[in-house]
Structures are given as structure tokens and as C-alpha cells.
């Protein structure tokens, strides 16, 4: 084998130079980490959730730490489509990595409009459809926990774009396989899972919720076992590739997802804990491949051994 393992992976129509991607909402537009992480070294970056109109987001406090995790209730604060096109897109177009827009709409039509607006736009490699945000009143998770609506949103986006469509699923369901199947049948090219798990924390001194929004989304290592399980369930159900996300802190965690069957991984909360986490994970994957005589990282995907 060559001493440099081949880290390339395919997400359906999308080629990635390696399987390490930043998770939406945890890496801004890449710009915020510019002194720390060169995005061109990564498999891709997924941008902060984008809506048609600017969104101010939820009132603070918006984040609170929990055991091995955190709750966030950002509320999809973002500059909106127009400002994004003007202020962020030009710089993103100069990047040599997969730049994936994460979109969120209030209605099925809004998802369609966003997809249409990004159609043919240079510099956006794929669209991740967020039907799983727990921190907004309308749309978001309400869509992603219903198989029919999930399929409808997916179909709408697929019809309105020429780009690969990744649908990001919510773990707040009884059976992820049903949603995964519905979304696949509606034409998605890949799935991301999981988004955050709904949770809550209370300040016992003030007796008030620790988040102004009352509830938030749980992320971080605490949720990793749940994420791995859902990825494992999904890859057995659908034929499209799955991107694993949830609690990945280091390369060992990333490997768990790849072995479970994920074609790539997203790194979220870890970016806060260790801003260089993505690069460290990449390095760790290389070392693992070398130490284990894995010439192509794609060999690891789904290599889970289940005893009879």
C-alpha cells in the first residue's frame, strides 16, 4: 500500500477529498475559524442554516452546558439569503472544498424557494436540508418527524435544484428508518443524521429554565451512542449514503461512524471545545489507516462485524 492512504469518499454525486465535514451552525461560514482551520484541507464545510429572510434568533441565554454535552437554542439566527449572496458567497466561491448550504424554511414552499435561489449558483457544492431544527416554532423538526412532510420537503428541494440534496434528519422520532426511507424515495442523494435531541435544563436557584427558549437541542459526546445507533439503522434501510453526526470529538469517534456505515462525518460541538478538532480528526484517520493497512478509507465504511 502507499504510505498516504486515500481518504476520498463519495456522497452519491458529490466527491469529497476526505470524509471530515463541519456541521451546520458550529463553524459559521468558515470565516470565523480562518486563523485556525484552512477549510481547503477538509472534506467540506456545511454553512450555518440559511433562511429566505434574515432571522434574529431566540432571546438569550441560548446555550447551556450539560454533562458531556450542551443545549443550544440559537433559533437559526442568520443573515438571510440576500445578505448571504452578497456578503459570504464570493469568498466561499474561492474555496477548494465542498461548500454545502444548509437551508431551512417556514413552509414547504420556502424550502423550494431557497433551493431555486441556489440553483446553478457557483461555489455551492450541495444543499443540506434541515428538517430537524428543534429551536424554531414552525417548520424544522415539526417537518422532520413526519415522514410525509419530510418527503414533500425533500421532493420540493430536489425538483428546484441541480445540486446534490442531503437531508438532515431529526433523532426525535420513534423510528428513524421510516423517515430515512421516505426521504430516500423522495429523491434525496444523501442523509445527515443526527441533528440535536430536544432537552431542557433548569436553574434550581432561580427555578427558571436555563434557556430563554425553555428547551434546546442537545449535542456533544453525550449523544454519540444515540447517533451511532441511528446511523446504523439508517444505513441498513436506505441505499443512499449517510453522513454521521453527533458527538464526534476525535478520530476514534469518527471511525465508529464510518465502521457503522457512514460515508462521511460531520464535526459540530467539537469545534467549540477544540477549534482544530477537524484537522486533528483528519490526522487521526490517516494514522489509523496507516497503522491498520487500510489503503482507502472507503474500505472502512460499513465494515462493522456482527456475530451470527
Amino acid at each position, binding site marked *: 500500500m502507499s504510505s498516504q492512504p486515500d481518504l476520498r469518499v463519495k456522497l452519491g454525486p458529490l466527491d469529497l477529498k476526505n470524509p471530515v465535514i463541519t456541521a451546520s451552525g458550529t463553524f459559521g461560514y468558515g470565516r*470565523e475559524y480562518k486563523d485556525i482551520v484552512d477549510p481547503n484541507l477538509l472534506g467540506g464545510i456545511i454553512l450555518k442554516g440559511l433562511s429566505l429572510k434574515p432571522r434574529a434568533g431566540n432571546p438569550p441565554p441560548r446555550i447551556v452546558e450539560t454533562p458531556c454535552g450542551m443545549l443550544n437554542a440559537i433559533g437559526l439566527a442568520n443573515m438571510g439569503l440576500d445578505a448571504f449572496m452578497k456578503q459570504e458567497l464570493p469568498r466561499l466561491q474561492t474555496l477548494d472544498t465542498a461548500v454545502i448550504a444548509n437551508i431551512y424554511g417556514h413552509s414547504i414552499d420556502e424550502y423550494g424557494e431557497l433551493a431555486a435561489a441556489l440553483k446553478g449558483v457557483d461555489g455551492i457544492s450541495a444543499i443540506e436540508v434541515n428538517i430537524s431544527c428543534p429551536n424554531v416554532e414552525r417548520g424544522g423538526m415539526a417537518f422532520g418527524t413526519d415522514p410525509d412532510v419530510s418527503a414533500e420537503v425533500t421532493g420540493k428541494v430536489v425538483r428546484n435544484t441541480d445540486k446534490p440534496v442531503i437531508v438532515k434528519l431529526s433523532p426525535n422520532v420513534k423510528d428513524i428508518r421510516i423517515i430515512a426511507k421516505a426521504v430516500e424515495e423522495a429523491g434525496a442523494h444523501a442523509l445527515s443524521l443526527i441533528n440535536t435531541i430536544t432537552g431542557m435544563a433548569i436553574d434550581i436557584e432561580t427555578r427558571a429554565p436555563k434557556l430563554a427558549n425553555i428547551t434546546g437541542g442537545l449535542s456533544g459526546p453525550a449523544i454519540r451512542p444515540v447517533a451511532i445507533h441511528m446511523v446504523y439503522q439508517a444505513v441498513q434501510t436506505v441505499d443512499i449514503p449517510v453522513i454521521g453526526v453527533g458527538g464526534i470529538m476525535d478520530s476514534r469517534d469518527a471511525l465508529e461512524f464510518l465502521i457503522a456505515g457512514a460515508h462521511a462525518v460531520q464535526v459540530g460541538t467539537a*469545534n467549540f471545545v477544540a477549534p482544530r478538532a477537524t484537522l486533528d480528526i483528519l490526522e487521526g484517520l490517516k494514522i489509523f489507516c496507516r497503522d491498520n493497512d487500510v489503503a482507502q478509507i472507503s474500505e472502512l465504511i460499513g465494515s462493522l462485524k456482527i456475530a451470527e
Partner: protein
Amino acid sequence: MGLRSPEIVADAKPGQFVMIRVGSGIEPLLRRPFSICGRQGNDVFLVLYRVVGKGTAIMAETEKGGRLSVLGPLGNGFELPKPGQTVVLVAGGIGVAPLFSLAQAVKEKDIQFMAGFGSSDEIIRMDPINDLNGINISFSTDDGTKGHAGLVTDLLDEYLKKNRDRSDSMSLFICGPLPMLKRVAAMALDHNISCHASLESAMACGLGACQGCAVRSSSQEKTEFYHVCKDGPVFPIGTIDWNSL
């Protein structure tokens, strides 16, 4: 504590902060923000902290010579007051930290430093600024065990009354617990004195990426929220919606 990092020392401006990873594990998970309160030579910057929870408790156990992962310097820092201004620094408790670094940086010195604490035994060592020329330090304690018995805002109130004619040439910089900040902000607005506050907020990234550290702005037109880590931690008091805090 002193932390050796020539890079941070070289880059840091007064009022900026760092995000410290208090351990190497995943619990507690997030980094903790701390103001840079000064420096020792060109290699070491100083952080002054109060143990309030598990993160700071772990920091207190970190041994001399140990290594910590530090991200920074972060945030905007203070805009230095124009020459000729009377610089009034008002701190509550650990809020002295960023003001120390500002006091050290002010060139032409005419500094009033007012620091309020609960009790004399909580008073933080002032040696980073004790020897500065042109600085006038006064204390208040809730229980009267040192300086004025009462709030630090009383000290300010008195000072402002005495120097009513000079309010044009005053620059206030404040840091401390929220009730204190609110009160001083109200006084400064009342007297129409230039005033900057260093705010705190829960933070995850410290880099402007997560939008976790939002604070409501006073002007909806401009933006509904500022982010303490990126737009702050220092804000002109007029830009913040103090009622929301």
C-alpha cells in the same frame, strides 16, 4: 494565574479575553472565557479568576508548570480613551480583571479606579495597578470592612456629583455583575457620559460562529442582537438593551 504565550501577549489588547479549556477531557465540555488582566514581560499574560463552579475549580487545581489549551486573544477590547480624558474605571468583584489591563494601557494618566466587593476578604490583589502613576483607587464593600460601606455605585455617584462640570471629558469603563452594570449604565446615560461596559455571557465558540452569546441591541434597525464574543465583550452602553438583561 500567569500563562506563557508570547503570541497572545503580542496580540492582546486591553479588554480582550481568552477561552481556556480547563481540562483535557470532555467534562466539563466547553471552554471558559476569561479576561486578560495584564502581562508579565513579553511571554506571560495574566488571568485573574474567581472559583464559582467546576471549571474554575479544576483551574485552581492546575499545577504550576502545567499546560492549558488557550484560545485567544478574542473580542474587540477597549477603545483607548482620548488623551486628556479623565478615565473612570468602575469594577464589581472579579470585574476588576479587564479594567486592570486598561489602566495599564492608558498613556496620559488621570485614572479613577473604583472597585466594589462583598467584604474586605474578597478584595482582589490590586498590585497589577497599585504602582501606576496617576491612578486613584477607592474601595467599597457591602459590609463596610474596607472603604465605603455600600455599593461601588455610591462611590461613582459621589464622584460624579463632585465633578459635574467635567462630565464631558470623562470616559467611564465598567465591568462587574449585571445589577451593578445596569445601574452604572443608567447613571452614565443620565449624565451623558461616555461609557463602555465589558459584558459577560455564556459562550461556546468565542469566535462568532455559534451565535450562542447573543445580547439584545438597543436599536432594532441596526441588528437585533450583538454577540459578546465578537462584537464585544466591550460595548458602548448606548448600544445595548439593558432592560433585556
